[in-house]
């Protein structure tokens, strides 16, 4: 059946995807590439890039959710053809080698988008929980405990695998539509235009302005939220007597790295401190012991306190804990003795935040000459 052309329905390229939506889409592509590479392929110390990308992703997704309500017609969720009937019909059509061209998203595409957005929201929530609970950083650092963070780490990883699958489905769908059915979806997500016999104008210039304002507000709100919260910590540099007496021979270790029991044994056995006479006078010993016991591993809810600090070792050495060994197994023995490191117990050589006891993955920086 040939379409009947009249003055009003001559096929014309019309703007259906507003500029904010298109910018959202392609920014999302870049951010997901960044988070995927930093999350799956790179070493721990790229975590900050992953996190910053995550913060941008929070802005982008919050924007998309708001834009789904107040954006131009085809950007709004209420224009999505989500009914079960339409979905089944579209799937049947595709099976039979046909695909009806929709002005906005087609039903399968719309569902894929809803699922993608949902997974991304869950990834952001779990990501923030890990960042706060495990790494003691970000806006949730003081609210989320270590165990909650750890649990969410597994969920975050599972969700990212699902996301990869959904992205594969999304790209496959676009390729089928573009190559097989000749619907230029990629081009229209760039130019915003589709050719239709429909005179309805849905995108107005003010949409770009509104979109910009909404995004800016979200970004500022997030910036504020991220920056009001800083993790509680004690810096061992604040205790000068500990820093001075123990620091004469080795980097003083954060009190959260050993149990009260181990600290007690270490402090009563200073005359033979790993083969060294590290004797102190009674007053100094008492002061340092008190400081260590008051801040032992059970007081802190950090990754290092849970995985290393709370485990007693016979030698009292933290380097004898399973977790420490697992985390350092890629570092060659001889690398610990290079001049910038000195020995295994010089945590500060690689962990920039060792003095605060946080030991965030993001704060690892290997000195020159050491390769993971």
């Amino acid at each position: 059946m040939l379409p009947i052309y009249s003055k009003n329905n001559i096929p014309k390229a019309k703007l259906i995807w507003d500029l904010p939506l298109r910018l959202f889409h392609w920014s999302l592509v870049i951010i997901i590439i960044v988070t995927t590479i930093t999350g799956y392929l790179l070493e721990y110390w790229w975590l900050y890039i992953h996190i910053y990308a995550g913060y941008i992703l929070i802005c982008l997704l919050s924007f998309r959710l708001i834009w789904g309500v107040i954006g131009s017609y085809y950007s709004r969720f209420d224009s999505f053809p989500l009914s079960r009937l339409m979905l089944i019909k579209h799937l049947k059509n595709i099976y039979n080698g046909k695909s009806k061209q929709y002005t906005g998203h087609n039903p399968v595409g719309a569902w894929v988008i809803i699922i993608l957005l949902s997974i991304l929201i869950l990834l952001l929530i779990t990501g923030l929980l890990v960042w706060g609970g495990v790494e003691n950083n970000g806006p949730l650092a003081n609210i989320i405990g270590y165990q909650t963070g750890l649990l969410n780490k597994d969920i975050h990883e599972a969700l990212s695998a699902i996301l990869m699958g959904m992205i594969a489905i999304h790209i496959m769908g676009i390729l089928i539509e573009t190559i097989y059915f000749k619907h230029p979806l990629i081009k229209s997500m760039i130019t915003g235009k589709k050719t239709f016999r429909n005179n309805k104008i849905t995108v107005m210039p003010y949409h770009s302005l509104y979109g910009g304002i909404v995004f800016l507000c979200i970004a500022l709100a997030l910036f504020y939220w991220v920056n009001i919260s800083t993790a509680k910590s004690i810096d061992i540099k604040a205790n000068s007597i500990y820093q001075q007496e123990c620091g004469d021979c080795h980097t003083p270790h954060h009190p959260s790295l050993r149990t009260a029991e181990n600290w007690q044994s270490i402090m009563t056995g200073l005359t033979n401190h790993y083969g060294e006479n590290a004797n102190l006078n009674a007053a100094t010993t008492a002061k340092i012991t008190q400081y260590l016991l008051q801040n032992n591993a059970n007081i802190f809810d950090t990754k290092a306190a849970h995985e290393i600090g709370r485990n007693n070792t016979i030698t009292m050495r933290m380097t004898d804990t399973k977790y420490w060994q697992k985390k350092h197994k890629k570092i060659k023995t001889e690398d610990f003795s290079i001049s910038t490191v000195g020995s295994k117990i010089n945590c500060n050589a690689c962990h920039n935040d060792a003095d605060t006891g946080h030991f965030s993955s993001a704060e690892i920086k290997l000195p020159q000459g050491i390769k993971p």
Partner: protein
Amino acid sequence: MKKLLITMISIFPLTLPAPIWASSLLDQYAYQAKQEFPDFKGFSTKDGEVFFLKNHNMGKIATPACTSCHGESPKQIGSTRAGKTIAPLAISISPQRYMDKAKVEKWFNRNCNSILGRACTVIEKGNFITFMQSQ
């Protein structure tokens, strides 16, 4: 007794021309040495050097000599067994080294026991600092 003390203190600057920075600690060691060893004639740079370089091997296995941690020359940077650097012992490089008596005593107490298996005599300590002063 008081007269003797005054005489001793007044002749020390002549027998030990030590710079002002170390005079108090070395004076105290010298005074103590005179008390403990009546035939004490003053500290010796040479004895201090021999003591510093000698492989005593009488204390803990890991630390047979001063040089185990401080290095072969007082002018070089040392390293603790834990890998932390130790500032050079020579006064010319570390002028603040022997200013705090409590700290000096703490380290003599620890290290003499580690290296010699006993406390150092006041003469050994005085010779040591006199040697470091010459460096």
